[in-house]
């Protein structure tokens, strides 16, 4: 809590919603890569895309306590939808994002009826199964998806018919960052809405929710669909900026990686997925440069170290440090 006295009940909520300086600094810092590390813009745009994917997972895992090991399914559906649209002659990126988000959201909505009924270990197995199911379906439908060779022939038109995608990734990074920021604003609003409060209630004590009259399954279906839409948008951006889609887009590895990133960064904090994605992908880039074969060793070590030393992730650790130093975040 802040040191100022709380004037009225609603101020307690206002204090949470207020933009903090650390947030402003964070977003200002995202403008630095083109200036400081222009040769890493391709990586930076992949980080922004992955951060968006991790943000979508945070909405279900971090805020609602719905664990998933198959979240890449929606990322992949978004990627293939955008990729196929482009291949079939519609390469306009913004509408592509929306259509891809819709397709992923549709799958999310349908599967949410199953998801809402289960928790914990059963949910891990179900989401894992869904992911594997979809991956194999995409693999066998190679006439559509290109199968193991990946989807070729994607061409993304310039954004607003003006900003073409360049080799250095200026456009790709600006585009990914802008979409990340816009979706982040929506997610931030959602978290601080009555619905966001209900989600935290589900995470804290799902069994208590029916006893206060809450339609918990309906809440879970809503957030799961929203998370699927966002994951789909992230997938679509990857397809549009790299102009290729491989089976890896909806693979188990991607589902697992995004959970790792979120836990690294800190769950249920909005910025956890963003920070986690950045740390993970920069670490992967560096470690694979050092040793292309065994870089997962270092990722494993990093994960164990963070979970042991910082149970609430990197951001949880930073928040603790700030409190110890008596600094207001």
């Amino acid at each position, binding site marked *: *809590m802040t040191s100022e006295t*709380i004037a*009225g*009940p*609603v101020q*307690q*909520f*206002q204090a949470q*919603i207020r933009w903090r300086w650390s947030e402003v600094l964070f977003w200002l810092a995202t403008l630095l890569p083109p200036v400081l590390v222009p040769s890493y813009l391709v990586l930076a745009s992949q980080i922004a895309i992955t951060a968006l994917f991790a943000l979508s997972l945070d909405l279900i895992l971090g805020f609602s306590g719905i664990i998933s090991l198959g979240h890449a399914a929606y990322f992949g559906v978004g990627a293939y939808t955008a990729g196929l649209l482009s291949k079939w002659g519609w390469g306009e990126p913004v509408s592509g994002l929306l259509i891809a988000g819709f397709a992923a959201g549709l799958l999310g909505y349908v599967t949410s009826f199953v998801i809402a009924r289960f928790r914990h270990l059963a949910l891990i197995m179900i989401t894992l199964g869904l992911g594997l199911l979809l991956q194999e379906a995409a693999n066998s439908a190679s006439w559509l998806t290109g199968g193991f060779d990946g989807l070729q022939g994607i061409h993304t038109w310039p954004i607003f018919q003006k900003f073409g995608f360049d080799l250095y990734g200026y456009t790709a990074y600006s585009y990914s960052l802008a979409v990340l920021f816009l979706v982040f604003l929506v997610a931030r*609003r*959602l978290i*601080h*809405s*009555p*619905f*966001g*409060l*209900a989600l*935290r*209630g589900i995470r*804290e*004590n799902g*069994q*208590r*929710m*029916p*006893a*206060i*009259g*809450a*339609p*918990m399954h*309906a*809440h879970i279906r*809503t957030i799961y669909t*929203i998370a699927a839409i966002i994951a789909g948008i992230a997938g679509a951006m990857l397809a549009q900026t790299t102009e290729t889609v491989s089976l890896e887009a909806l693979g188990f590895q991607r589902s697992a990686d995004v959970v790792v990133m979120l836990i690294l960064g800190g769950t249920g904090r909005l910025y956890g997925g963003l920070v986690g994605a950045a740390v993970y992908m920069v670490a992967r880039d560096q470690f694979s440069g050092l040793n292309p074969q065994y870089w997962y060793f270092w990722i494993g070590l990093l994960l164990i170290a963070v979970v042991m030393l910082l149970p609430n992730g990197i951001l949880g650790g930073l928040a603790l440090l700030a409190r110890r130093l008596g600094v207001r975040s």
Partner: protein
Amino acid sequence: MSDTALAVRGLNKSFGSLVVASDVEINIPPGVRYALIGPNGAGKTTLINLMTGMLRPDAGRIFLGDDDITVLPPEERVRRGLVRTFQINSLFPHLTALESVTLAVCERRRVAATWWRQITAYRHEVDEAYDILSVLTLASVCHRLTRELAYGQQRLLEIALALATRPRVLLLDEPAAGVPREESQELFAAIAGLSRDITVLFIEHDMELVFRFASRVIVMVGGRVLLEGTPHEIASDPRVRAVYLGKTRQGSVS
């Protein structure tokens, strides 16, 4: 308008060979303070679980007012005004007291599915939550996380959550469980102070509290309703004495 707030007809439930409810018949008129007593394992909590829909009965019907609610899901019963609290605190540990009660108010007003407006736009809901907490003497700790509250305060928050749903019938499962004696008096004073529009049924082991705060008492033994009556009738009934004498030998009733 019927003269029953909550009624149970021929309710049966068993887990395998263990019968936990056997032909239970209960008729609770509006506005009355009912106590539900009986030795451990008598099926008191099970009865609350059945009435609130957390368990499905094998047979029998449950009525809220004139409506048959036997097959309704728990949250729908809450929306119609049948609300419970839990014997063991079942709260939201990392929500503040104010957030918890605001959540319950938002669910009642059906705005909890709104995700495009920030919660600060719902000043009425927040104020109502604050008022409920004030009545239960929790206003000064409303910004604290639930897990940081004292145990007695958490018991009060249980009741605050229930009140936020505007119950017509409130089922309190040992509201003072684990609370020191002097505090449990305060807790029951708060319950006694509730509006007479709310019908209350509470499970309680402390006979002094039962006699002080209940106007009617139901005694359950072995999944059956042994008898129902005024506290005076119950106290003088030889069968109740027999049940509780059995417990006295184990030294648990003062």
